């Protein structure tokens, strides 16, 4: 059963790591804006670049 001493230590350490990660995230402002990134990810890359240029000059 002595292994429990080790496991208890491990569980506390793990929990501390997660707590530390949360504090780091909160302090660096990663949760400040939870809305915009969700929209940002939906934008396409510039696929139509060539086409739009063509349009512009033809008209």
């Amino acid at each position, binding site marked *: 059963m002595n292994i429990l001493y080790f496991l208890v230590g491990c569980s506390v350490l793990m929990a501390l790591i*997660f707590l530390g990660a949360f504090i780091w995230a909160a302090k660096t402002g990663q949760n400040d804006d939870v*809305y915009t990134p969700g929209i940002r990810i939906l934008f396409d890359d510039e696929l139509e670049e060539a086409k739009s240029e063509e349009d512009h000059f033809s008209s």
Partner: protein
Amino acid sequence: MRSYGLGNRKLSYLVLPFKFYAMKNQQQTTTYTICYHCGEEVTDHVHRLDDKEFCCAGCKGVYQILSENNLCNYYAYNHNPGQRFNHDTRLEYLDEQQIINQLIDYTGKDSSIITFYIPAIHCSSCIWLLEHLYKINQAIFSSRIDFIRKQVTITFSHKEISLRNLVETLIQIGYEPLISLQDVVKEHQKALDKGLILKIAVAGFLMGNVMLFSFPEYFGLSGLEKQFQVLFGWLNLAFSIPAAFYCGKDYFISAITSLKHKHVNLDTPLALIIAVLFLRTAFEIIFNTGPGFADTLTGLVFLLLMGKWLKQRTYNHISFDRDYRSYFPIAVTTLINGLEKPVSINEVKIGDRLWIRNGELLPADAILMKGDAWMDMSFVTGESEPVHKVLGEIIYAGGRQTGEAIELEVIKPVSQSYLTGLWNHDHYKNHVQKQNFNDSIAKYFSLAVFTIAFSATAYWLLQHDSHKAWSAFTAVIIVACPCVLALSTPFTLSAILSVFDKKGFYVKNTDAVEQLAKCDAIVFDKTGTLTTTRNAQVYFNGKLDDHEKKIVASLFRNSAHPLSRHILKELKTGDFFQVKNYQEMLGKGLSATINGSSVYAGSLSSNLKAVDHQPFSGVHVVIDNVYMGNFVIEQEWRPQLNVLIAQLNRSFDVQLLSGDTNKDERHLRTIFPEKNQIRFRQSPHEKLDAISALQDSGRAVMMLGDGLNDAGALKQSDFGIAITDDINNFTPGCDAILKGDSLSLLPNFIGLSKDGIKIIKASFAIATAYNFIGIFYAVQGTLYPLVAAVLMPISTVTIICFTTFATRILARRNKLFT
């Protein structure tokens, strides 16, 4: 109202050449074109580029810039994402180093970072465009949007692009940043308090771990596991230390401060319980007499902090604490030896010469020295028509010049002007301390708990059982925890807040909801509160035939004045005459020769002598010295005011304070019955005094207003509501912001807030019942930690369920449920 015939008001999006309609105009059929950029109906002249129609040169200009920079994706994400704008803002002040330093967040060797508040941000296209600024100008490295707060943070090379050029770039693409004296951006950064979030995270961590190590104790330990008991006990004690002294620190501080003022608030018994729980846990573990109450302690602290967080939670995107500074620009042009120089408003001194152009705001009380002043004082007085001022007259801060540029001499610094005085009024200081239900009951609660605790101790001491005396004393205090009291209020009120929120009523915080429930008098402002600014109605008194209509429309088409735009929109003529000798007399009217006739439109004061005096206000039209009639632009009354006022009159004392003249008195009397007091021509200070007079007569006053002229009254009232048609507009400091469309729901809002207070009282009764069960065991000195640890979460969960369901039911009963 005389209708202009064009019966079909439906927008049809057909795009056909405009001349075509002119020919068919007789048949009164018409089709509207909408602007490719902003989506507004094109009323006069169509601007075209690349087969696309635009309503104005501004919109076309934006499109041109975007298409030149390959940014046409802007139009791909949303239809007509732009907003029509007209900018005549002067930006010289952005070249002043002092002002730049004030605005910029950070300056490094090669780059600077600045955050702007841009009210025009409203859709995903805005995000896309503003995050691709680097395509327009290489000197902009990157830009990031915070959509909810409508802010953009830009990193740019200050060597290659000046701040002024940067702002000009933003304006060119239709996103003008709002730079005012009260820096919205910086205020937000200040308001973000991360301390509480961190404490909740730590408390949650501690609670979880303590629960883990307490479980073996709950289920009973076998002989083999006994060896762990000591380890778990010490671990729990170690976790209790940060719970009590880091997470619970604020409760001790608050308790000590309130005791110093000989006053008991809710934090006092809470701090006592945290202390007792910690001491008893430490005592039991150090002397190995029991498992302690670490689980109760950490659970309590975690729940308390959650309640506190709910209470503090507020709207990120709405500011409730704005004052005159958000209406003022950051700089003003001064004249030094005849040379213009922009100066930061805070540095304007007595004797400075100010140079105020058309549309600019006068920031300090000043004397008119040169020029023709037509001041729009609607900020200060609520009166909508511009006032003519003569040389040597004092003009109060807050006036907006409409007309030519004027020169003024400052007689009072900005911070001491007539308008600013509203905020420095002594009244606010002796405002009665607002006490909520919790704090008022905390006193009696603590008293009762102490009486029971001490009598139990005394009893056991008389029985010569000092061990039981100690455990009975601590157990009573632990069990009688007002935790539920501290939680039911934030849970109930924040549930109510979110119901309000869905209906367009944004209340500042949970304390304000309690204030709302207490109000028994309601005072309305008129302009902007009972009327809406959105749809001005245009009437024409008189007759115009189609030919004359065309003449008048051709005249108005040349003017950028808001009234002219309104009228032109109403006239809906697609065809115009050539205009000669066009003259715009600022603040007075327009005149021109059109199709051989001389035409005048404007106010009467500067009218031609040949015309008989007409008693009406509005825009008067004279063609060839014949008076044709006048356009009256009337603000529309909000719908169903009669019903609203009748409903409110049943249980409230209703009054009206208007800054305007009594021109609408007759109409108002059809809404407000005889018993309601109506007062006109109220200055902002008079409004404020009227509110305090009501309060002195023992009333709790709710004030509904909209403008800066109501700001003092809103602040003085017990519950100030700012009404707005657009939630993103600037509103004066207040307790709540109400969307104009939701005004008719006001009685329901008040009803729900009153029911909320009932819910809190009911949950207090439930909590007391739980406490009696706990105290029954506690006084006997036989309270086992397991019972305490189970009792507390159960009562908390009961209360949270009760408040949530009760709020839902009552919201439905008040017809506020979607």
